[in-house]
């Protein structure tokens, strides 16, 4: 009898071994800020991942997908570096989504190179930080030039030749200022003044007065989402610049859907360049929006981090499906991801073959009220914008 049980046990073990070998588990580390002022990023990332896995299942290419989240707490490179280290060693993550914010991803680059862990960047926009830093980065967010160049061209084309440029005084702001001024000079526009606003600045009236003095045709704003983006748009309206006929233009962050309601009607008529609007007219987007709202409710509204996390999941699933059957190979995965094109709710997206950065359409939008809700309505497309 004892012999029988033993042989049964052995048989069970033998049967179990190939079964576990058959189904490999891929662990995805999601490194976003889940606390503090930028906690919306983490919330929206996780919401997008949950929705994606509900819709497409938790197995792809014969591999089971699991994810875990870690809180980068905001732009905090020391924390991000430690979290990435823990994610790839202790947590055995094979793929990362994030880390968010430029300083965080710069700090993480050497680690992902050494560990050979592909990381999809969904929340940092500084240009020249993807393929330049590590072969294991791919980006589904946007690169600064994509938001900053097209509006200069658009402004001059519409005969708003005298432009005043206002950026926030931090690295992405300086990057954007350079890109915008370059494009403005190429298009033949004139810069009538520019100013950099310090971060954590609650009062904007002095800058509005400067704009008034310079009498431009249009103003271009680049601000981080939040207090600053809300503040400039409201101040622009309150100070009477909008009523004076000066055009309010800017990077799409200033009318980001998550904070658009907080700005209120002051945002009406603002013209921005953006990668995604929830009103984007395509079947795949309508489906995405209705499913997202059904799962997460109407508020907070869908921001860009949600869409770029959604696309990060798309990349991961497509990449894993492409190497179905075999064991997960990070180099093959990156080789597939780079050069991959797909249809996102935002429109067509391509991951650059050489760099891993994103190539995508940039839309010129105007804030309008549709059924009582403020929306960014796309009305012109700059196709397949490069990342530098």
């Amino acid at each position, binding site marked *: 009898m004892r012999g029988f049980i033993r042989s049964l046990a052995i048989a069970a073990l033998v049967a179990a071994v190939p079964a576990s070998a058959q189904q490999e588990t891929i662990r995805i580390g999601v490194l976003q800020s889940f606390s503090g*002022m930028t906690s919306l990023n983490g919330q929206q990332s996780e919401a997008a991942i949950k929705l994606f896995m509900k819709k497409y299942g938790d197995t792809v290419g014969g591999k089971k997908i699991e994810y875990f989240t870690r809180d980068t707490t905001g732009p905090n490179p020391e924390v991000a570096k430690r979290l990435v280290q823990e994610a790839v060693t202790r947590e055995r993550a094979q793929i990362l989504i994030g880390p968010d914010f430029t300083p965080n991803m710069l700090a993480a680059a050497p680690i992902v190179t050494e560990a050979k862990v592909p990381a999809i960047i969904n929340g940092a926009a500084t240009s020249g930080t993807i393929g330049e830093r590590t072969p294991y980065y791919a980006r589904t967010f946007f690169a600064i030039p994509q938001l900053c160049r097209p509006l200069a061209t658009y402004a001059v084309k519409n005969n708003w030749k005298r432009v005043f440029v206002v950026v926030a005084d931090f690295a992405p702001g300086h990057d954007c200022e350079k890109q915008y001024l370059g494009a403005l000079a190429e298009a033949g526009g004139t810069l009538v003044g520019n100013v950099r*606003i*310090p971060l954590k600045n609650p009062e904007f009236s*002095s800058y509005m*007065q400067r704009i008034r003095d310079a009498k431009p045709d249009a103003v271009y704003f680049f601000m981080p989402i939040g207090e600053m983006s809300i503040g400039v748009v409201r101040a622009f309206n309150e100070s009477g610049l909008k*009523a004076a006929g000066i055009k309010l233009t800017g990077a799409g962050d200033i009318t980001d859907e998550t904070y658009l309601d*907080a700005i209120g009607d002051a945002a009406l008529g603002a013209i921005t360049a953006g990668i995604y609007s929830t009103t984007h007219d395509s079947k795949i987007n309508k489906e995405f929006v209705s499913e997202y709202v059904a799962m997460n409710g109407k*508020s907070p509204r869908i921001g860009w981090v949600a869409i770029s996390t959604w696309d990060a999941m798309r990349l991961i699933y497509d990449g894993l499906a492409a190497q179905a059957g075999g064991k997960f190979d990070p180099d093959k995965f990156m080789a597939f991801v780079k050069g991959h094109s797909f249809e996102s709710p935002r429109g067509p997206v391509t991951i650059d073959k050489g760099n891993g950065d994103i190539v995508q359409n940039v839309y010129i939008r105007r804030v309008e009220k549709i059924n009582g809700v403020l929306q960014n309505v796309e009305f012109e497309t700059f196709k397949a914008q490069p990342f530098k």
Partner: protein
Amino acid sequence: MSSVASILFNGISYGVLLFIMSVGLSVTMGMMNFVNLAQVSFSMLGGYVMVVAMQKFGVPFLWTLPLAFILVGVVSIVLERLLFRFFYGTDDLTQVLLTIGLVFMSIAIVTYFWGGTYQRVNMPEWLTGQQELGGFILERYRIFLVVVGGLLAFLLVFGLERTNFGAMVRACVDNRRAANACGLNTDLIFAVTFAVGGGLAGLGGAMSANLLGLDPNFPLRYLVYVLIVVSIGGMGTIGGSLIAALALGIADVAGKYYFPSIGGFFIYIVTVVVMLCRPLGLLGRRA
């Protein structure tokens, strides 16, 4: 010329805003010797009272202001009875740690109930846009701020210097034991003073939300400004707070206009210089 005038006006209105937000702290800190950093949380609470009252219950904006004052005053008196009064005699560090802990708790609580996003603050029609006044085009909301702020400063100074209750408060501050011995109910007087301080913070929050935005991180964003105003003005002097707030508001707006490349630092330069020359603040007095 018109730009100088509008810079001056914008600076004054910003200063008035700083004054309304910080005068409550100045009162409790100077009069009662209690460092209540949670004062900025009271401001945030006032802001949320205003927003919720307007959006959920359709209360007109003007009525939300006394509402914010009263409700936040009540909350602060409850906290004072349950918590703060046990810490009146303790040292500054204990009080700072206790109240900064409350600030973090308030952020979490507000996030739990109203979410982490910015609130929509919609002003009535007559408070938006611009108004021509004596040849200058001024923002209506800022005119409103200056009028209300001026009224408030007058009421406070009058109340403290000219009324019976003001005299009692001053007596309690100067020598609590003697005041007690003379038959004053010092406990009650302190509680009422505390409530007025809290209510003023709530009023300040409700009035500032339109200009500064309102989200759960409001207290941490403005704590520094409030502390600067109180320390420059000198604790416990309402006149000092007013002068300091106006000076800082004008310095900040003018600094950013004339020297945009260093504009953000201007307010701190002023602070450092004043603190070096007058460590107790402009009108500070300490026995």
